[in-house]
């Protein structure tokens, strides 16, 4: 695929590929609704150039579920009522996935440190923190089972 240099990742995803799960708001790297993973690292798709994706693997919220099976982080967000309007949710979920991939045993301080750059205007954050913690313990339990 050829893209103009000036195209951002968010524009590529939303306007050219029709993948509108990734949202855009501040375009200043502050709110996190545009978070996607590039080679596992969370980036702001609003401020990243699509040409920089060359040779990388990109994961968006559309890529999390396996068929009808939601990703454990998505399940945990539903179970913990960690969304109201839902606009911030794809960004929070992608950030949580990035965190738990890098630090499966993340403690509360790490959860806060990583989620700190995502804004939510509805939930008051507590349910989101709970969701990430629940997802972490479920993932840990699943890994322990696999290991047996």
């Amino acid at each position, binding site marked *: 695929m050829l893209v*103009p*240099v*000036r*195209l*951002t990742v*968010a*524009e590529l995803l939303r306007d050219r590929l029709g993948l509108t799960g990734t949202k*855009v708001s501040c*375009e*200043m*790297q*502050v709110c*996190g609704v545009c*978070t996607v993973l590039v080679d596992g*690292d*969370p*980036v*702001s798709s*609003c*401020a*990243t*150039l699509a*040409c*920089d994706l060359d040779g990388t693997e990109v994961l968006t919220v559309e890529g999390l579920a396996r068929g009808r099976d939601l990703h454990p982080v998505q399940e945990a967000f539903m179970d913990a009522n960690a969304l109201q309007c839902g606009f911030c949710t794809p960004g929070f979920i992608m*950030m949580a996935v*990035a*965190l738990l991939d890098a630090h499966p045993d993340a403690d509360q301080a790490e959860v806060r*440190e*990583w989620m*700190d*750059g*995502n804004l939510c205007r509805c939930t008051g954050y507590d349910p989101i923190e709970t969701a990430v913690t629940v997802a972490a313990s479920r993932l840990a339990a699943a890994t322990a089972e696999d290991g047996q």
Partner: protein
Amino acid sequence: MAVLPELGLVRSSDLDEVLAAVGHDYAPYAGGTELVPATGLGLRRPAVIVDLKRVDALKGIEVDAGAGSVTIGAAVTHRRLSDHPVVREHLPTLAAAASHVGNARVRSTGTVGGNLCFAEPRSDLGCVLLALGATADVRSATGARTLGIDELIVGAFETSLAEDEILTTVTVPFEPAGMSYWKLQSYERPTLGVALVVSDSQWEVTVGAATERPTRIVLAAGDTAGLADFVGGLELSDDMTGPPDYKRSVLRAHLQRALGAAA
């Protein structure tokens, strides 16, 4: 969404090719965390952007045990800096500061070089690196020079780099005993940063974020009058995080706590 203007791209893994390209209208960039929004807002108008992040020579982190220093490539991201075992061992204060830069997305794309060369006053790295006595290695297609951090960053959003120069590496002496970094931060960038190196004989105080550029003073331990003069004479910013008087009060309170001395 803000649409960026037309841009050309130069991309290479070879430092010489990149150096040959950088120049007027040919802006180097790495993570793009500053350049992309600044170009979207029309604050920067490069015709072509020259990608530094695929240049191997700009991505190393190497320790020189003999010299007692660590050399960090300009295109090293905050995340790699803060996670790197060598940095954590020899430069723990820098590693900790890098692990608290902005947010997790800025840390995974933003680089040391981009931070210093954008010269945004509200930076942690500039302050910590000045306090550590780091030097900046600068190259162009035709030459090389080495600068102190205070010679590289000369003002708010202002470096002494020529249009055809890039920062290649930063060489940082191992952290001395008695070093600390503390910041006040209520939004995504620091409001005030204070790096201290305290020994029985000396107080080294470096203040950043609220000043146009990081500002350092070396005092004899116990020189409270000198400290008060320094703090009183700093020109501090006036912005939405507070007026200069407020920042000066916070700075005094921090120094009092950290040094046990009234400033």
